[in-house]
């Protein structure tokens, strides 16, 4: 701005100076030129009169430095010259002033010297004898005047320059200051040029719309992040260059990523070939999915392109934790395989015995033994099927009203049912503890107590002991069954509640269990809202406690 103001002031000064110099110069010049001519005509008249009166003697006596006098005959020959030798001068008949004088008695003309720096004025007058007298006077021309003026003009220019500089500086400061001090946050509160008020009110309007937009945007953003942050699934949005636009907290947790990964390439979050492949495919516009295993968890990754005008503008990647799902899947597969196996084995025995009987190969005295085997295996099958039905009932969640159950009574009942089996292997079963009432379903509580007792006897050593304790604690009633049996290895502790899971797979059939007992316990406990804790020492025994919630 200062520069612009400086330029304007300086140019204006320069223009005014030039125009006025030229104008005044030309007026003065022509004025002085006219005066010169008039003076010269007068002088010529005087000289002519003097010459006619005094003759040649006046001319020789006339030795003015500023005037030059020439006497020319009517044929043009120079008769006398006050400056130069007359004989050396050429014929003057062609001269303008001479021709004019011959014709009109007097004449005048002016001529530039060779260098243009000087100008000579001539004035001629016809004498009575027909000769012509001419007086001339030389003055410096307008050009020499100009050259002479150069120095003062330069000085004036310099002054103008400095003046312009200072003025422009001050002026621009003065003009710009209100503009610089504009408060654009509150445009309408400014006290400044009226011309700006239109602009300022426009700024105010736009500022308001911007603020509104910003608020809306922020609100939308907040809504979006509130939705995505509370998702259990990981959600990542990426742009066309695979850069992360948004990543929710679940995804950050899955990939152990920090918040600052936004804006960086998705490869920095997970660089496994499957994942980068999926991300690469979907920003090209193809949906795809893959399975990922990260730190022991299994994830299903679904990626879909975000299409705008039929062009992929990015992609949306969803990550589901399917660890639990695939574990359940595995358990279900194993269950089906196990059930078929467990059902098939007794059937094979039954079929074998029945076939022998059918074909009459069996001796009559052995028939009883074979029938007995068929009976045993069939009843084993019945137990198994009953267990499975019970389990599936629990799975289905057949709802029965809860009632008040005497835990001690139920425990005693369960202990009685296993007493026979225990006695045959010389195992003592003892129930201790006060009467405790719980809220539950008697059948399920009995199922829990019975299966725990049954296992405690089954996996016990000969001459061992089973202790059933009931106590009432602050958090609820606890039923614990401890045995002096073979114990459970630590790495199997987590799996004993799975259906058909056997710690010692090779000897499971000898004990006669179905492999579903603890599974039933777990389901029944879940149904009643009870908690199971297991502690076991290999070779010393196991203690399983069930904590029933308070009434």
């Amino acid at each position: 701005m200062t520069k612009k103001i400086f330029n304007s002031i300086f140019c204006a000064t320069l223009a005014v100076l030039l125009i006025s110099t030229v104008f005044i110069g030309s007026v003065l010049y022509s004025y002085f030129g006219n005066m010169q001519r008039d003076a010269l005509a007068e002088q010529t008249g005087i000289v002519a009169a003097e010459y006619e009166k005094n003759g040649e003697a006046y001319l020789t006596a006339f030795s003015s430095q500023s005037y030059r006098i020439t006497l020319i005959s009517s044929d043009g020959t120079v008769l006398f010259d006050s400056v130069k030798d007359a004989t050396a001068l050429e014929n003057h008949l062609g001269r303008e002033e001479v021709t004019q004088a011959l014709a009109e008695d007097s004449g005048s003309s002016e001529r530039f010297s060779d260098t243009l720096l000087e100008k000579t004025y001539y004035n001629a007058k016809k004498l009575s004898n027909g000769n012509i007298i001419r007086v001339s006077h030389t003055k410096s021309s307008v050009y020499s005047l100009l050259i002479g003026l150069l120095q003062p003009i330069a000085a004036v220019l310099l002054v103008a320059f400095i003046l312009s500089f200072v003025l422009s500086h001050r002026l621009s400061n003065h003009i710009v200051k209100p503009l610089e001090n504009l408060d654009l946050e509150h445009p309408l509160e400014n006290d400044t040029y009226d011309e700006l008020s239109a602009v300022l009110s426009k700024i105010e309007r736009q500022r308001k719309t911007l603020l509104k937009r910003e608020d809306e945007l922020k609100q939308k953003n907040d809504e979006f992040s509130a939705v995505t942050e509370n998702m259990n699934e990981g959600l990542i949005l990426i742009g066309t260059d695979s850069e992360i636009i948004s990543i929710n907290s679940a995804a950050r947790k899955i990939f152990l990523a920090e918040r600052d990964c936004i804006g960086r390439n998705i490869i920095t979050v997970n660089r496994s070939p499957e994942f980068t492949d999926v991300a690469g495919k979907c920003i090209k516009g193809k949906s795809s999915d893959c399975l990922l295993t990260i730190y022991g968890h299994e994830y299903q990754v679904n990626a879909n392109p975000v299409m705008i005008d039929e062009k992929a503008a990015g992609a949306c990647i969803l990550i589901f934790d399917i660890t639990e799902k695939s574990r359940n899947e595995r358990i279900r597969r194993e269950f089906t395989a196990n059930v078929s196996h467990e059902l098939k084995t007794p059937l094979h025995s039954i079929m074998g015995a029945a076939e022998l009987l059918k074909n009459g190969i069996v001796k009559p005295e052995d028939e009883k033994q074979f029938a007995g085997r068929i009976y045993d295996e069939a009843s084993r099958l019945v137990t198994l099927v009953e267990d499975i039905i019970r389990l599936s009932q629990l799975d289905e969640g057949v709802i029965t009203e809860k009632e008040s159950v005497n835990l001690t009574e139920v425990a005693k009942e369960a202990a009685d049912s296993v007493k026979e089996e225990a006695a045959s292997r010389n195992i003592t079963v003892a129930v201790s503890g006060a009467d405790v009432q719980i809220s539950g379903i008697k059948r399920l509580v009995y199922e829990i107590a019975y299966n725990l007792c049954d296992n405690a006897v089954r996996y016990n050593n000969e001459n061992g002991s089973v202790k059933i304790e009931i106590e009432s604690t602050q958090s609820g009633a606890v039923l614990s069954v401890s045995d002096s049996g073979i114990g459970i290895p630590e790495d199997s502790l987590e799996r004993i509640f799975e259906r058909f899971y056997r710690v010692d797979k090779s000897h499971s059939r000898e004990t006669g269990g179905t492999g579903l007992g603890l599974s039933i316990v777990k389901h029944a406990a879940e149904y009643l809202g009870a908690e199971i804790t297991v502690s076991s020492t290999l070779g010393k025994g196991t203690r399983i406690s069930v904590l029933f919630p308070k009434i």
Partner: protein
Amino acid sequence: MRSRFDEQLELLNTELVRMGSLCEEAIALAAKALMQGDAELAQRIKPIERDIDAKERDIENLSMKMLLHQQPVAKDLRSISSAMKMITDMERIGDQAADIGEIIGFLGDKRTDEFELICDMARASIGMVTKSIDAFVKRDVEIAESVIKSDDIVDNTFTQVKKALTLMIKNNPDDGEYALDLLMIAKYFERIGDHAVNVAEWVEYSVSGIYKGEQSI
């Protein structure tokens, strides 16, 4: 101009991660092929190794271009120069994985106790490579330092393998060739561990400006 430079830096970063991921894939394949005695699986390492070589050249070109055109200073210069050092180590990791793959072809199905030790080494060195690249991705000096420390584990296991194999040759001279093959594989895994340490050291340098625990100038 500046934003273009930032873009190039990000590209360099991404390419490095991609190369690291290829290295991980190569050595994971080598370890898997070794443990399962699967020579066919080992065949798949070779193409990955070629990809790694191509990536090395790409990254080298990009780094040179950035050095010449943008003349970076300070942290940016460190990032680029350490990238150029890192790719050399990563390329060596790829080569060694491919070499292991070649030897697996001669091993056959034989399994001995020494073999288990080498499998341990394989697992440990995979862990080191993964961690060193994690350190790079997260610019995490702590992870880098843990990689540098865990090199001792691989080195110690290598010494154990060496002793066990010497005994094996002494007791069963007929197994000599098998023992030497195992030794080669063990040595390669040990070298891979060293390269992972180098990568971790360059990560440290690019983040902190201090190389191998030297005082910064």
